[in-house]
């Protein structure tokens, strides 16, 4: 009994930081694009957020940021730093951020396992927690 709980506690300790580190992961393409943007503009972070908008609940926002807010989640992956707005965190956990660049478009793409249904452009998405949020904002 005691061994099992000790084992679980030890396992949880090891997994928890890893789980937090994995909140959002970046592909190589996304990381190099972020690096390029931050170097070009001489800014410290890109900040990822969500806003209630679009046809299907939420859409992603991306802005430059120089300071980490007190409750911002800092993600360091592949040598770049991304901040996640605390309000967005529960909607984007597990998201993979990619960057596609072809002749017609170049854009950040978010592959979000929480997402239920997406807009054609992929910008608008809905999660189980967001449908409540949109109802609240509409009400």
């Amino acid at each position: 009994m005691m061994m099992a709980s000790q084992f679980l506690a030890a396992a949880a300790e090891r997994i928890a930081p890893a789980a937090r580190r994995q909140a959002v992961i970046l592909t190589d393409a996304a990381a190099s694009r972020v690096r390029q943007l931050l170097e070009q503009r001489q800014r410290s972070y890109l900040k990822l957020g969500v806003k209630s908008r679009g046809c299907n609940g939420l859409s992603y926002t991306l802005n430059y940021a120089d300071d980490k807010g007190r409750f911002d989640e800092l993600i360091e992956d592949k040598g770049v730093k991304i901040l996640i707005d605390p309000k967005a965190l529960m909607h984007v956990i597990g998201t993979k951020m990619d960057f596609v660049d072809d002749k017609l478009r170049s854009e950040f793409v978010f592959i979000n396992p929480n997402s239920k249904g997406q807009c054609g452009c992929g910008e608008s998405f809905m999660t189980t927690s967001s449908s409540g949020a949109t109802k609240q904002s509409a009400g």
Partner: protein
Amino acid sequence: MAPRTLILHRLTAHFAGRIRQNQRLLSSHFYSSTALEEAPSSSSSSSSPNLDGVYMTDTCVQKMKQLQASEAQEKLLRLSVETGGCSGFQYVFDLVDDKTNPDDRVFEKEGVKLVVDNISYDFLKGATVDYVEELIRSAFQVTENPSAVQGCSCKSSFMVKL
């Protein structure tokens, strides 16, 4: 007897007038619809006063010229409307070598050509194509479309006004 013939005269005159009016309406409709069919050939020049063309912004034209510079062959921007997206229809952009169908419409500005197939054109009359650059994405977008009810905020999907 006299009153009846009078009524008869008045009735026939009335109906004759109505028939003439209907003929006038039909012939004017016929002329106006043929004028619309002829319009595509004249709307290919941007200076045409036709309000049902599909327009490109200067930024869009500039981007196309940039793309063209790195291409050996002349490229056209194809815009089509497909079903899908969260609001019913969505816009699809493509770079093509030439128009595929004989009834495709081509709109030109400063040497840059925009191709729209006949069916999509019904949903794109008077629309404007822009190239929007933001941090999160840079892409061609339809920024104004009189045929569409404001659908998706990202402007890739829309609903048609009935």
